[in-house]
């Protein structure tokens, strides 16, 4: 059936997100919070995350452009972003953020720039994948817990 196919797809996508490290157990937490009071909680949170993190990425972009030597500022922004990534369990993005901050510590601007590209890339990829996931969910309903990848 189409429906169960879709369900399977969604489950598979979800599992791969975990397996490939895009998401970690924090995402599970979000799913657990979802209930009849907030039936779209996870998607709402994820949307909010991407909105806010885009803003933060923009800040960093600007800072890199205008005041690339202000490592403290860069670090502060990235720290904010990092905190934010921990909210939805965006594991890979978070990892890149950490690397960026290490470059900041060493005041290595080139390292920062390169690292930042990675942050943005991971961010974009995650966004795409999650959008696809939610789309599937809308068509099928929430994925069974049992199919959840164990982390």
């Amino acid at each position: 059936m189409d429906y169960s196919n879709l369900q399977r797809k969604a489950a598979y996508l979800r599992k791969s997100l975990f397996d490939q490290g895009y998401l970690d157990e924090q995402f599970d937490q979000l799913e657990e919070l979802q209930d009849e009071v907030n039936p779209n909680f996870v998607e709402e949170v994820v949307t909010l995350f991407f909105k806010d993190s885009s803003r933060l990425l923009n800040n960093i972009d600007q800072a890199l452009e205008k005041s690339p030597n202000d490592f403290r500022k860069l670090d502060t922004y990235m720290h904010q972003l990092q905190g934010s990534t921990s909210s939805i369990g965006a594991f890979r993005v978070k990892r890149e953020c950490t690397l960026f901050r290490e470059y900041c510590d060493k005041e290595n601007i080139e390292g920062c720039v390169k690292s930042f590209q990675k942050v943005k890339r991971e961010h974009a990829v995650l966004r795409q994948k999650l959008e696809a996931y939610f789309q599937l969910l809308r068509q099928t309903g929430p994925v069974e817990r049992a199919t959840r990848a164990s982390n």
Partner: protein
Amino acid sequence: MENPSRAEAFPVGLRVLVVDDDPTWMKILEKMLRKCSYEVTTCGLATVALSLLRGRRDKFDIVISDVNMPDMDGFELLEQVGLEMDLPVIMMSVNGETSRVMKGVQHGACDYLLKPIRMKELRNIWQHVYRKKMHELKEVEDHDISEDIQMSRSFSEDFDDRQGCLGKRKDLDSKETSDQECNDTAAVKKSRVVWSVDLHQKFVNAVKEIGFDKVGPKKILDLMNIPGLTRENVGSHLQKYRLYLSRLQKQHEERSSVKNIQPDFNPTGPRANFQNSATMNQISASGRYVPITQNFQAYNRTPAIFANNVKSTVALRLKDQMGTISSVETSTPKQEPWSNGIPLTSCVQRSKHDHEPNSSLEDCSHLPLTGQIHQTTTSQSLPPTSIISVACNPEQKTASTRTKPALNSTVVLPVICTSDSVSVQVERGSVDSQGFGVKHETDGSKIWMSPLREPRAKNEKDFVSLPEESPLSSLQNIGCFENIGLNSMDIFQHTGSTSLTGFHSNWYDGLEFNGDYSFDPVEYQVTDDCLFV
């Protein structure tokens, strides 16, 4: 916590204030807490949170805040909440370094959670509320203050047993049944000791006398001789005081700008050079007072003035947003008139305790910028009229507060500084630099204005003569606010800011207009006839 239904199903309905600038986390935390059946209020700014807490005292049981907030350091918020409202505060951060966690604990956090936070961690936060209540109840029980019965009732059935013990009221055999005492007792509705201006003054005096290095809760308690006050009360207060001082010192060390301002007057007496001291120094045990001197832009000054007789405190009642001014009282045991010439801006300085020679006063701000800015302008005019103005900064909304203390009155001007700089300017009239000062509390977030100098009117103008007697006697009324975890002393807050040029004061909403005041704020009109401290 008088809600009976809450008492039945504690911790259901625990009232939590969440402070976090990250909207994603905020949403998650709110959901998590709601799932724990707690009542959640969210807040994206530390300053707003503080004003919420102040405006709705007793409306929250616990505060959870992120360490990294854009408008205020989370640790400072933590301190202030702990001091003013005495609520348990939990810190959160994505940063779990030991040093940070330690700092959190040092600043009084009852817990430090690492993000990502699990719901089960939040489920247990009620224990901090409970623990605090238990502690307070114990203190109360120890001293037979019966007001806490209602607290205990609302708390849990288990406490009913204790209520029997609390029923009796011990006779206060001390003569100290002053207003202060009553206020303290009355204010202990929630079995919290309210550190009124008076009480804190006694505390500081005691510490001064003992010597900061040798001080201990028992010694202080004995010296203070306040019935009903426990060693634990004093101990925790002392701890806060120490924290405050050390924070001041640290901030001072970080500060760079120190400007010396030369007042136009020549202070007589030993304190004459306060204006020149670029660094806070030699604050002796009494040096907790910060002189508000004219043109005091260097908060780093600790006038030698403070060195001694600071026994009086000046609490400036600031004009609140509406612009009403309360009385400004200063009292000082010693009068050392200075010549006048009050310069323009007096900065509130915090003197540091002498064993921390470099405290900086600058922390006059730090209260949330709630937009209460009291602008004070002092123009150097003739002695007789002194207008105390306190200028608060960041936003240039200033409500001019001019107070014109009556002759021989004490000027109490509690000021809560919210922003970076605090300056108190005395306009017209002479202000004795000694008479005016800011005494800050150890908590690090309070500033007491204490008169370091005496106003001196050239033309026999009104002067605030500082009474020699109990320095804070006139202030005592200001001190206690019922139901406020806030100590009157707490109204002075300052954050580390480098220069006390503006006095950001934040008058607690409840404070000024608090009907619990046992004394009527005196409205001083700003007129030429102002005398001041």
